[in-house]
């Protein structure tokens, strides 16, 4: 079917339409891909895309594309096996020209459709991990609990940016678990041949054989492939923007590794129990504040007014300037919990060594060993919602392995 074209054609074009045009005297044939910010992308027969400005675009002929049925991700149920829950992120993403959105990648879906016995999957969300919220953590936690109750280990596909937050939030909400819960992601999207997605998924499935009764993260342990590692969800953190081994255990060690396709235990962890108990409540009135020299005390005051708990990322052992200390005192007086963590990320906080620390302590701040700032935040949200009267006491003792009480000599 051919359509004569006169004006304003570009807005009528749809992905897949075939276009013939003359550009600087040269005949060009291509397929319409997209129109964005006044730029039109066409795919030529040799696979290359070219980009024309809207004012350069004068098609001689357009052939409308047939509507192709879209391949939708299905859901496969399983019992007493492994259930993969996809939430989005790089691991599951692929560009979609019709909407410009990032969509679940067919590669990952087909990797899941390989007919592997006892592996099911379902796409429960489709967001980049910076768009996670405490409500979404609760939603994921509930979905996870349903699968645990079907006797399934759960592998959660998640963006790596905020994986620590989700992993630790799930860890606090899941008081006991009858099967493993492992979050995994990828640093190279699954639309590339070099993607780490496929190996990370298969490593995660292999790690379920260890029956870890904790919320864990599985990613690469080095920039080489064949390096699957298992980490404690409450002790790991994204420490690099782009490397495959970006998520690392802090002040701790890998729990297990993959060697020749077999999961091998490297450190102690809690084993799975008889049943699973979920406490699906979080109070989002908690915030992280990164202290810096010269910080306006007014910033602290504003944050204190809107929250019931503040996790400070202080300097060194856990310090802030004198002008902030008085704000801490005020906030604590009005019932806000103040938790001190460190910008150093690794190592303990200690409010006894310097006078600043002692003054902070006197002002009402508490420290919680070497807890990671992000983990302190999710723990604060969990405690506010479920144990607000015991907040100070529980914050300082490890509930889910989030505090290392003995830092090893290494």
């Amino acid at each position, binding site marked *: 079917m051919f359509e004569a074209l006169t004006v304003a054609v570009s807005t009528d074009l749809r992905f897949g339409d075939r276009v013939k045009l003359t550009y600087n005297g040269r005949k*060009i044939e291509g397929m319409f891909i997209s129109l964005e910010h006044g730029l039109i992308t066409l795919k*030529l027969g040799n*696979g*290359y895309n070219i980009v024309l400005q809207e004012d*350069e675009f004068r098609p001689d002929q357009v052939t409308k594309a047939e509507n192709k049925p879209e391949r939708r991700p299905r859901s496969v149920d399983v019992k007493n096996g492994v259930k993969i829950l996809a939430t989005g992120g790089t691991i599951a993403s692929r560009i979609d020209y019709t909407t410009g959105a990032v969509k679940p990648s067919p590669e990952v879906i087909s990797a899941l459709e390989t007919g592997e016995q006892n592996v099911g999957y379902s796409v429960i969300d489709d967001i980049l991990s910076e768009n996670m919220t405490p409500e979404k953590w609760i939603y994921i936690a509930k979905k996870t609990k349903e699968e645990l109750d079907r006797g399934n280990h759960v592998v959660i596909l998640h963006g790596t940016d905020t994986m620590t937050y989700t992993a630790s939030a799930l860890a606090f909400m899941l008081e006991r678990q009858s099967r493993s819960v492992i979050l995994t992601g990828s640093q*190279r999207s699954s639309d*590339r041949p*070099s993607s780490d997605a496929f190996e990370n998924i298969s490593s995660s499935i292999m790690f379920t054989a260890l029956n870890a009764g904790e919320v864990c993260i599985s990613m690469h342990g080095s920039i080489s492939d064949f390096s699957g590692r298992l980490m404690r969800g409450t002790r790991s953190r994204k420490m690099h923007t782009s490397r495959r081994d970006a998520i690392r255990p802090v002040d701790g060690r890998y729990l297990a590794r993959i060697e020749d396709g077999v999961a091998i235990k490297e450190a102690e962890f809690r084993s799975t129990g008889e049943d699973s108990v979920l406490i699906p409540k979080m109070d989002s009135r908690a915030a992280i504040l990164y202290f810096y020299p010269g910080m306006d005390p007014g910033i602290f005051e504003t944050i204190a007014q809107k929250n019931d708990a503040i996790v400070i990322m202080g300097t060194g052992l856990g310090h802030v300037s004198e002008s902030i200390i008085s704000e801490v005192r005020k906030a604590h007086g009005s019932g806000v919990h103040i938790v001190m963590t460190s910008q150093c990320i690794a190592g303990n906080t200690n409010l006894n060594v310097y006078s600043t620390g002692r003054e902070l302590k006197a002002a009402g701040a508490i420290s919680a060993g070497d807890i990671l700032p992000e983990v302190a935040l999710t723990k604060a949200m969990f405690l506010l919602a479920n144990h607000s009267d015991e907040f100070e006491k529980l914050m300082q003792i490890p509930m889910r392995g989030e505090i290392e009480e003995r830092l090893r000599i290494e």
Partner: protein
Amino acid sequence: MNSEEKIRIGLEVHAQLATGKLFCRCSSGNGTDTDFRIKRRLWTVSGEMGEIDRAASYERERNRSFLYRKSVNSCLVEADEDPPHEINQNALMAAIRVSLAMDSVTFRNMCVMRKLVVDGSNTSGFQRTMLVSLGGYIDTGKGKVNISSLCLEEDSARKVSAEGEKAEYSLSRLGIPLLEISTEPDIQDENQAVEVARKIGDLVAGTGFFRPSAEAIRQDVNLSLGYGRVEIKGVSKLSLISEAIRYEVSRQRNLKRLSEELNYRLKGEEVAVKFRDVTDKMSESGSKIAKSQIENGSRAFCTILKKCSGLLKSGEYRLGMEIAEMVKMFGLKGVMHSDELPAYGVSEDILMALRSEMRAGTDDAILIIFMKENMSGIIEREIEKRIRKVLMMDLSETRYVTEDGHTHFLRPLPGSERMYPETDIPYVSADELISRASALGKIEDAETRAVKISEKFGISRQDATTIVKNFMEDEFVRIAEILSDGRLSARLLVQFIPEMERKKKTMPDRDLILELLKFAGSRGYGRESIEVMIEMLSSGFTVEQIKNSDEIKPLTIEEINKMIHEAGKINKPGELIAYIKSRTRRPLDPVIIKKVMDNIINEQ
């Protein structure tokens, strides 16, 4: 020649640019490899349209892992651990200038694509490439050769070693900008092909960013006799073009005759390859090949090839070789077939026993392959595909050429499905570069450039022509600027360095030479010292070792005077030089010698 046959030749010329790498800020020099290795595997993913490319899926069947060696000129980008940085503006400028010189239609906005290549030569599994221009032409003695496209892309990683399913690559070459210029199939013969390649080289050199290296210009040849396009890879030496073309033409003609014969014999019967495990028979055969293969865990599989007797290897028929080359790409050692048996320790009796077990008719051939059991399904399908392609005379595929001019199967031709937009890089706007390139004017031809260089740097016309013809002008200008001495620079480049390369059989890193020359310049060292430095570099000394070596320091007046004192009477410069050379290998600066001699003469 068959009347329907018309040989059509197209060229794909790849020229490296010395601008630094395309998407990171690493040098485009010959960075040496370190011992740090990364181990990776690659997965097959679908293209932008959701289909899996046939060349890519072929590689997937081969199931491979790769090692990559870090080089001094590689960073996290080459390791596929950091997204690409901004595009190198000098490289894009060079691409645009060459496009304008060929009268091509240059795009104002460009889209970087990922061309899927899963043979391991790219850590990412794709090569980044962008279409800069379409059309244009190159003038030759035999008329115009039309250009189809010019792309700016990243060079691939160089293979260091390959052993079975394991291949090791160096990251050194990965990411160096490459201009890929493809011609229409307008070329009539190999002489014209050589002329086109040279003219394209001249244009790239004229941009001022030609990369001086042994692999700076590489070309692939596209050939068609009407039986599908065959892309011949790795025709590095232009002299190989004609041999490769001759070989390929004769191969295709023989296959054409074979195809007619087999079609006649089969009378429409389907091609079917079905393996049967004959390990027991083969292990009794006494064949050494069979014995060692079976001991290594392979099993022997046999299939009938219907009506193929006498077509696998006899006279000009070579279907056996076509199959053998294909299974070799799966890491298998090759095949045995009934046209060449009894041989390889397989007796007539065993052959007869196999034939009867397989129920092979007199017209049928049998084929034996040693492989792991899990391979047999893939190999069955691939052999069927191979025979069907011959029956249909669709010979399109990617082949590679060896030194003897013979071509060999490499992989199926990649389709457009291997292209996917590089989502890490926004569109590149080239408006500003295009207007700057237009202002610079067209690239001058080689002759004009040689005259200019000769006049500007005071070197002979002959040296200037040699420099331009060998694509060394950028390097020459850089060296001449460092040394502020055109003649010395020309001598080094035209005579001394090539001499060293012949003598030491290695090509010293150009970046390191420049570094040494800068050092020499800062110390005021002359020709003698510089030559010693380059010789040391060619012998494998590091830059630091050379800089700290006493052997490069010219003798001072005081040292020479001391030697003269020790020698007693010396009258002529020649005597002095001979005496000093007998005592030390350190360089002698002629200026200093002259000063010393003047002093001696004055004193006398």
